[in-house]
C-alpha cells in the first residue's frame, strides 16, 4: 500500500478553481517531486495535505487513514511534517529550542511539573536536549545550537527548518521550494542533505521545486501541475521529456 494516496482532490476559492481532480500516489521511501509553473497550485496542494485548507472534495489517505477534515496539528501527529517556501522559524528562540519545539509531542511533562521543577522536568529536558543535539549534529548545526535562529545564515536556516520538521518524527516530509534563494553551491549541498535525510531516516519526501537541476538530480518520480490539474506524472526522466511538460513549463 502506498504511504500517501490522494484521489480526486479539489478546492475552489470563490470562482477560482485552484486545484481540480488532483491525484497522487507516493510509495514509502520515495523521493517525489511536484513541479509546475507559478500559480499552478503546488503550495495549495501542500496546504490541503497539511490541513491549512479544507478541500471541497476528495480523499487523502495517509497509511490508509483518511486525513481530510483534520486540523493541522492532528495531521502533524498523524505523520506529515512540512517546511515553508518563505522560511518560518521561531526566530527569537535558539536553534536548539527550535528543534525542541518540534519534539514537543514526543517528550511530555505537564506545565505544573515544569513550573515546580519536579524530577520529571529534569529527566525529560535532558532527554530532549540529547535528542535535539543528536538531530542538530546530523545536519552539522550543533555548533550553532545556542545562537538565535534568526542569526543563522540562509542556507542553515533552511536546514534548521528541515531538522525541526524531522523532530516531529513524521512518516512523510513535505518540502516547499527548499532551494529557493540558494546559490548553486548551496543547492548542491541541499540536494545531498535531502538524499541523506531519505536514506538516514528512511523518510518519504515530497518536494515542490523550481530548480530543474535539483528536481532532475534527486527526484525519482514527478507530478507536473498546470492550472490546478495534473499534466503528467511518472518516472522523473519520462516526465521531463514529455513534450507537453516541456511546452507548458520548460519552454519550447
Amino acid at each position, binding site marked *: 500500500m502506498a504511504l500517501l494516496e490522494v484521489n480526486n482532490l479539489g478546492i475552489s476559492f470563490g470562482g477560482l478553481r485552484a486545484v481540480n481532480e488532483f491525484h497522487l500516489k507516493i510509495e514509502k521511501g520515495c523521493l517525489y517531486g511536484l513541479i509546475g509553473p507559478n500559480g499552478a497550485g503546488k503550495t495549495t496542494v501542500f496546504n490541503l495535505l*497539511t490541513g*491549512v485548507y479544507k478541500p471541497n472534495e476528495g480523499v487523502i489517505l495517509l497509511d490508509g487513514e483518511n486525513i481530510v477534515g483534520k486540523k*493541522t*496539528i492532528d495531521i*502533524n*501527529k498523524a505523520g506529515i*511534517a*512540512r517546511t*515553508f517556501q518563505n522560511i*518560518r*522559524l*521561531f*526566530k*527569537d*528562540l535558539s536553534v536548539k*529550542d527550535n528543534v*525542541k*519545539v*518540534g519534539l*514537543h*509531542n514526543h*517528550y*511530555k*511533562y505537564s*506545565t505544573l511539573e*515544569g*513550573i*515546580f*521543577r519536579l524530577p520529571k*522536568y529534569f529527566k*525529560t*529536558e535532558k532527554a*530532549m536536549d540529547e535528542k535535539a543535539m543528536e538531530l542538530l549534529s546530523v545536519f552539522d548545526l550543533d555548533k550553532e545550537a545556542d545562537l538565535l535562529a534568526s542569526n543563522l545564515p540562509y542556507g542553515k536556516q533552511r536546514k534548521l527548518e528541515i531538522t*525541526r*520538521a524531522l*523532530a*516531529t518524527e513524521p512518516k512523510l516530509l513535505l518540502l516547499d521550494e527548499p532551494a529557493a534563494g540558494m546559490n548553486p553551491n548551496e543547492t548542491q549541498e541541499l540536494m545531498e542533505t535531502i538524499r541523506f535525510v531519505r536514506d538516514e531516516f528512511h523518510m518519504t519526501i515530497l518536494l515542490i521545486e523550481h530548480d530543474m537541476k535539483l528536481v532532475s538530480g534527486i527526484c525519482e518520480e514527478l507530478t507536473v501541475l498546470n492550472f490546478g490539474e495534473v499534466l503528467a506524472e511518472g518516472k522523473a526522466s519520462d516526465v521531463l521529456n514529455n513534450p507537453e511538460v516541456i511546452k507548458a513549463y520548460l519552454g519550447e
Partner: protein
Amino acid sequence: MTKTTKNNMITYIMVILLFVIMQTLVSTGNVSSLLQGLLVPLCAYIILAVSLNLTVGILGELSLGHAGFMCVGAFTSAFFSKCMADTIPVAGLRYFLALLIGAAAAGICGILIGIPVLRLKGDYLAIVTLAFGEIIKNIVNILFIGRDANGFHFSTTDSRSLGLLPDGEVIINGPQGITGTPKDSTFLISVILILITLFIVLNLIHSRSGRAIMSIRDNRIAAESVGINITKYKLMAFSISAALAGIAGVIYAHNLATLTAQPKNFGYNMSIMILVFVVLGGIGNIRGSIIAAIILTLLPELLRSLSDYRMLIYAVVLIVMMLFNWSPKAIEWREKYMAKFKRSKKEV
C-alpha cells in the same frame, strides 16, 4: 549552571537585595512616610508588570485590560476577607486563602475572556481587552452586596434595595466599594509574592509549555505545523497572566482601608501604565519590567519637591529612557561600549 539559570538567579537576588536595602532604610528612619506607603503598591505594580510581560512579551499579544484582572482579584479577595474577618481570626491563614481566591477568580475571568478574545490578533485584541477591562470595572461599580442573618443579598441599583435586616451590613457598596478590608498586606509578604511570581513566570518560560508559547509568538503557522495546540497554550499564558494580576489585586486591596474601583486604579490608565513598565523594561525581559516599575513608580515621589515640574520631568525621563532602550543607534552604542568593557576586563 547554565546561562538561563544564572540569569534567573540574578533576578531573584536583585529583588532580595532591593528588599534588604529598603528594609534597612525604613528601619533606620531614612524613608519618608509617603514613600513607605508606596512600598506595598509598588510590589503590586511589579507583579502586574511581570505578569503582563507574560502576555505581551512571551505570548506576543497586546492586552490593554490587565487592570481589569487586578480589579477582579482585588474585589473577590477583599470581599472574602471582610466576610471571614470574624470566622478566621488568624490573619496569615485568611490572607493565604484570600490570595488563592483572588488568583483563582482572576484566572477564571482570564479563561472566560480569553476564549473569545484570543481569536483576535494585534490591535483588535488590544481594543477588545481594553473594553473588557472597562466592563469589569463598571460592573464592580454597580454591584451592591449585603449580608444579614438571612444570608447574602444582591442588588445592582442601590444599598437600600438590598432589603437588609437592621443587623445586616453592606459589604460591597457600589461606587463606595469595600470599606474595612483587613490591612494584611505587608512589605515582606508582598516581596515574597514577587519572588513567587518570578518563580512561576521564569520557570514557565524555560519549560516545554513556555517554548510552545514562544513558538506561537514567533510564528503561529509554523507552530501549528509542528503540532503545537495554539488555543491551549495561548489560553494558558493569558490565564496565568490574569491569575498573577489577581494576586497583585489582592496585595493592593489588603493595603487600603477603602477599596473603590476608579479609573485611576482599575481603569485603562492603570493598564497603560503597566504596559509602559513592560515596554520600557524591554518586551519579554522580566528583570527589565521590575526595574522599570520601580523607577517609574518612585520617580514622581522623589521629584515631589519640584512640585509643578514633576510630571514634566517624569515625561521627559520617560522619553529619554525609551530612546536609550530602543533606538537602534543607542543599542549600537551600548553594545560597542559593553564589548569594550568586557575586553578591558579580560585584559586586567
